[in-house]
């Protein structure tokens, strides 16, 4: 059987008193997109940089394409996009991509790749004069030009405008279709939901949930609203059908799960009216990863 693209088991990495990775485990497969999702400081970059061979783990095991991540033989097989920088400021976009391509035996055509990412007109522009989005796309191009088996993308769409984000997403989907294993970090829920086969939610250096987006969010619809904390949910539940569940998590955020028929919505709003409760963000929808994260941590992801 083909080895896993990445297998991380009980990874620990400390910087002084803080643990950037604190017993973190996950797996990634070829032909799949694995998203490490979490707030800034959750330990995503540390984990990815250990997989890339930049840092050593304090303990735990990390295998990349079946090898030790610091094995030099991996350098031809993985592509890396750092969270920022990595390109000389005076290098021209096309010149830099051709340089990186020249390190590989059978690279992609740099000109075609620039074209694909909408950078042809900027090919002769120096890196420092590119917009933030163009810089990100050039770094992405450099990560894939060597035709790797495994690509690490650290926040590939941070700071991108919607159009550039979609160009990046389409490239990631093409990589996946070609059988490449893609590991990306993000704090955009929609990005993880759209792209990932497997989402690994990371917080404080630990995996707090993982699985395909649909299994994390569930298929059932929910009624969600915000209101003042501490509403008497038992009283509300007594007015609802027996199988209905209502919970407050975190404080002030209410979720009602059950058979979401129009009468249920009417009952809830009537109950709110008779109790003088003003709701906000009242909506009926499937759970999003945003909701999952909020319920698991009690915090907003991008706070």
């Amino acid at each position: 059987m083909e080895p896993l693209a990445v297998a991380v088991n009980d990874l620990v990495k400390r910087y002084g008193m803080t643990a950037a990775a604190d017993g973190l485990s996950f797996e990634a497969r070829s032909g799949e997109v694995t998203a490490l999702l979490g707030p800034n400081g959750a330990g995503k970059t540390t984990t990815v940089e250990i997989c890339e061979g930049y840092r050593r783990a304090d303990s735990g095991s990390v295998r990349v394409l079946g090898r030790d991540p610091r094995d030099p033989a991996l350098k031809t097989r993985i592509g890396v996009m750092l969270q920022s920088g990595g390109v000389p400021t005076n290098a021209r976009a096309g010149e830099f991509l051709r340089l990186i391509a020249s390190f590989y035996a059978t690279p992609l055509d740099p000109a075609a790749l620039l074209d694909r990412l909408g950078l042809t007109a900027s090919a002769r522009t120096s890196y420092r004069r590119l917009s933030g989005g163009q810089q990100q796309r050039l770094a992405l191009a450099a990560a894939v030009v060597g035709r790797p088996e495994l690509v690490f993308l650290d926040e590939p769409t941070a700071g991108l405008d919607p159009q550039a984000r979609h160009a990046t997403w389409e490239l990631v989907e093409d990589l996946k279709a070609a059988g490449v294993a893609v590991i990306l970090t993000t704090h955009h829920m929609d990005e993880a939901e759209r792209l990932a086969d497997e989402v690994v939610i990371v917080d404080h250096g630990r995996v707090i949930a993982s699985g395909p987006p649909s299994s994390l969010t569930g298929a059932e619809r929910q009624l969600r609203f915000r209101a003042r904390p501490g509403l008497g949910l038992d009283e509300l539940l007594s007015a609802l059908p027996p199988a209905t569940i209502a919970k407050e998590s975190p404080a002030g955020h209410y979720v009602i799960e059950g058979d979401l028929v129009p009468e249920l919505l009417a009952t809830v709003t009537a109950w709110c009216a008779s109790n003088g409760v003003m709701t906000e963000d009242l909506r009926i929808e499937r759970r999003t990863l945003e909701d999952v994260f909020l319920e698991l941590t009690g915090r907003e992801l991008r706070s």
Partner: protein
Amino acid sequence: MTDLTFSPSPGAAPRSRMVRAQTAYELRTLLRNGEQLLLILIIPVALLILFSSAPLLDVGAGRRVDFLTPGVLALAVMSTAFTGQAIGTGFERRYGVLKRLGATPLPRSGLIIAKTLTVLAVEVLQALVICVVAAALGWSPHGNPATVILLLLLGTAAFSGFGLLMAGTLRAEATLAAANLVYILLLALGGVVFPLTKFSGGVRSVLELLPISALADGLRQVLQHGAGFPARDLVILAVWAVLGLALAARFFSWE
């Protein structure tokens, strides 16, 4: 839309091709950098022309251009191998370029070789320009070219070692400031444009141990006076070279 296939096809290019590509890239970016050109070419040539044509400094007996050209060659080596390399590499480290290249098949040794080849190629260019300008000013060199090349290579090794040590240990801004300061100090105190005989005995014997003084003096002994083998200067340069390269190898941090 061009047809691109992303199907994996990993493999490194031959090492020689990687080093060639990196060297060509480094040379190209360096030669279109105005500040670097000022440092490595314009200042040395301007000093040569200025002090050769006008009796602004007392350079001792003999023709001024014969005294100045070896000193300016030494300055050119220092500006490329030390100052330029320290600043360029320091900012590459700061911007994560060294880190990013570390994730490619180009090995670190290949990157160092490419940087060294770049320095040597620039020095050939500098020497050509300086020799042509000096010849136009009436320069008449003596001595064995092989000894001159040996001196230049040892000087390059010494200055590269300390340039990379600085780039690999200090913050980029500190490297920028320190490399420029060292350049100016050594230009003034290293016997580049006026002889160390201007200093009193005690100070002078210390200044003679500087790599720039040893290089300038060694070149001057050969090119101006036709000496065969300036052993003392070669030994001083060799010691600096071993020291600088060993310290750089030990303390250089890539991130």
